[in-house]
């Protein structure tokens, strides 16, 4: 259980700057997700933390003691940071028990620590199997158990679920979070999947172009994104041009209460599709239904307002009340988040998100 602090970390590969001064605090005993699109530097960040790469500037502290920076580079095997790579990377020549016991000293290996962590990941009794006899999900569980076994300061998970199919992924990431929690481990999860980051992490760090754009609790990042890009990256977003007057924004969806540090004048406001309610009657703005994407548990309805603005609504029932081409009435629940006005049109942002 340890707190990790990165400050001003810079990493360059020749001409390419992968990390351009990253400041992150990983709280002790929690799971922190580093979220970003591919190429944002999140894997580099993880490799610098683990000690596989030397940083060019800044410093990395674990429990207050410096492991990298200022001319110091503690080699990977002295950092007490265990990694779980993307494909698990189990040692193919060792049994499950020997894999899990790899990081333990001789005495601990003979204790019941191996079976204990195997139980944590739901693989009690699998110790004698060889890696090739396991499914992909089981291999990932063993990789997590192997990383947990020596009680490292930090466990680094590098997109550990990305190679699995969707059904398996949800169950496994829940189990892994529970295993980390039960063992009191500090974890860093690198991922490009916003759903994964929001659902399992205690803290989310959004990375873009080698910089931290936002860091905070999942709810804060989702509800109070610092800019329109983060808003769109962490979830479906309806971005509308608006004018703020005395704490309320005039938008195509009517006058909405706003949050966020804005002064009166033109702004861009964020409304999440689940805030847009499709209601019966005439109390609200009328819209025509353009498309209807059924997802099973809910549905996304594409709408066009009278002034031509396109928006998206998320509805929970089957959507029989919203036939394509029909007219509906919509209104917005809760406040909208306001950002300084942006130039990109609202529709192009929506198209990006749909893709």
């Amino acid at each position: 259980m340890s707190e990790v602090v990165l400050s001003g970390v810079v990493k360059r590969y020749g001409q390419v700057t992968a990390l351009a001064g990253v400041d992150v605090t990983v709280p002790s005993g929690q799971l922190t997700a580093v979220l970003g699109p591919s190429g944002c530097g999140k894997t580099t960040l993880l490799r610098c933390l683990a000690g596989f790469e030397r940083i060019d500037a800044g410093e990395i502290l674990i429990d207050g003691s410096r492991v990298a920076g200022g001319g110091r580079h503690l080699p990977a095997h002295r950092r007490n940071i265990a990694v779980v790579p993307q494909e698990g990377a189990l040692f193919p020549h060792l049994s499950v028990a020997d894999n899990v016991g790899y990081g333990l000293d001789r005495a601990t290996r003979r204790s019941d620590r191996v079976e204990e962590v195997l139980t944590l990941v739901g693989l009690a009794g699998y110790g004698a199997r060889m890696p090739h006899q396991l499914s992909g999900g089981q291999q990932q569980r063993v990789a997590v158990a192997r990383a947990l076994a020596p009680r490292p300061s930090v466990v680094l998970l590098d997109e550990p679920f990305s190679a699995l199919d969707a059904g398996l992924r949800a169950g496994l990431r829940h189990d892994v979070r529970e295993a980390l929690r039960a063992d009191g481990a500090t974890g860093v999860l690198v991922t490009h999947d916003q759903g994964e980051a929001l659902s399992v992490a205690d803290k989310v760090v959004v990375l873009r172009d080698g910089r931290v754009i936002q860091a905070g609790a999942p709810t804060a990042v989702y509800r109070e994104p610092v800019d329109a890009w983060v808003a769109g990256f962490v979830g479906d977003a309806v971005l509308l041009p608006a004018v703020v007057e005395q704490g309320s924004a005039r938008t195509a969806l009517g006058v909405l209460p706003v949050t966020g540090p804005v002064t009166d004048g033109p702004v861009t406001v964020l409304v999440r599709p689940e805030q847009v309610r499709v209601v019966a009657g005439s109390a609200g703005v009328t819209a025509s239904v353009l498309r209807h994407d059924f997802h099973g548990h809910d549905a996304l309805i594409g709408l066009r307002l009278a002034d031509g603005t396109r928006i998206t609504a998320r509805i929970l029932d089957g959507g029989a009340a919203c036939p394509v081409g029909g007219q509906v009435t919509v209104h917005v629940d809760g406040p909208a988040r306001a950002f300084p006005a942006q130039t990109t049109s609202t529709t192009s942002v929506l198209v990006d998100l749909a893709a």
Partner: protein
Amino acid sequence: MRRLAPRPALLAASTAAVAVALIPLAYLAVRTAEAGWDRIAAELWTERVGLLALRSIGLAAVVTTACVLLGVGTAFLVTRTDLPGRRVFAVLAALPLAVPTYIAAFAWVSTVPRWEGFWPAVLVLTLCSYPYVLLPVAAALRGADPAQEEVSRSLGRSGWQTFTAVTLRQIRPATAAGALLVALYVLSDFGAVSILRADTFTRAIFVAFDMGFDRTGALVLSCVLVALTVLLLTGETATRRRGARYSRLGGARRPASRLPLGPARWPVIAVLVGVAGLALGVPAVSLGRRLAAGVSRPGALAEVLAAAGNSLTVSLAGAALTMLLALPLGLLTARAPGPLTSLLDRLAYLAHALPGVVIGLSLIFFGINVAYPLYQTWWLLALAYATLFLPLAVGAVAGAAAQSPVGLEEVARSLGRGPWTVLRTVTLPLILPGIGAGAALVFLTGMKELPATLLLRPTGMDTLATELWTSTAVGAYAAAAPYAALLVAISALPTWLLVARSGLLDKEERA
């Protein structure tokens, strides 16, 4: 994107290994230059050298063309048609690799009287070498994505147009690689052309050295042969760059649909059986006939055992030295690819492409003049093997190192294990089997090496290959037969590995 840390120790060891492998080449250049330009010119601009060049190049060209036709044709028949008994024919077509060319030549001269000259050499060399084209092309045909052919058909191209426009291009890199191998092999072949009395560079070099101790003549001829080899290698590099590698764009492996041969299958089968009969049947019958007489000769068994013991010893020494040199270079190739690494790799390959006669000749002069304590010992011969077979071993080590990806070592380090522990507990256990296979390959290849062994063996020490050579030279075919049979048995093992690895033996998936 991910840069690997420079590895100075590995780089230094690799450079040293390549330097050792290049001793023969460097020394050849030094000795030849000592003769002075006038003497070199006098030896070089003669009608004989011109004739030798014409004959060597002609032999290489004719054999390579024949091998490409035979190899590509057979590969297509056994992988892409409904030929009955495809797998049997595939194995039969690959098996001639197990017959060293000088043994095939011996089998032919001991069976057909007056079987000598250019065209007999073409026949024997083609029958022995066409598997070098067959194996890579068959692997490429099996691995090629059939979807590309299907797309071509769906865009309105006929079967034949698709074959020429898509299939032949898919297999072009494999064909070029196989053809290069054949051409290099023919240029450097010594045993077969000597037994069949086809006067080429390798034979002329040996004769010049053996008969008159004509140093300058032998050295100049060697240099011309080296120049031809380098020219071929350069051409190969150029085609490699252009041909790139045609990779499959994801997707699962799916067998291509098979071309029905219909009534044409009977003549096709007749041709394949005929080729197999010439390539395998003639040596088998010839060896079988002579073997009984050869073994029953008084004292034969003791002689054969002594020669086998000598072969074993020098090949073991050669394999040990080769692996020692190959380890750093192989690890460097696998772990730190880059321009410097590929330069070292190419240089090692250059030594491999040199004819054994040239290596042997150069090392004799090296032994007499520079390293006299090594002269007339196994070690000079082991050095020749190391030079000749280094790329085989480097390939095995690099392939084995790929079995232990860097990611595994990183995980091990993150679990608190230091570099040496990681090497001992993760890297070595994963790569040792591959390295062992590489050592075995070098060992078995060394057992059948002829020209360098002939030149460098300590006086009075005979190996299986040299005993065969000596007996054949005096027409003692029965005495030669036991050595030939043993050598074929030894060659069969690496051949089998090669065939198994090419995928020709894999069970076919149902389409």
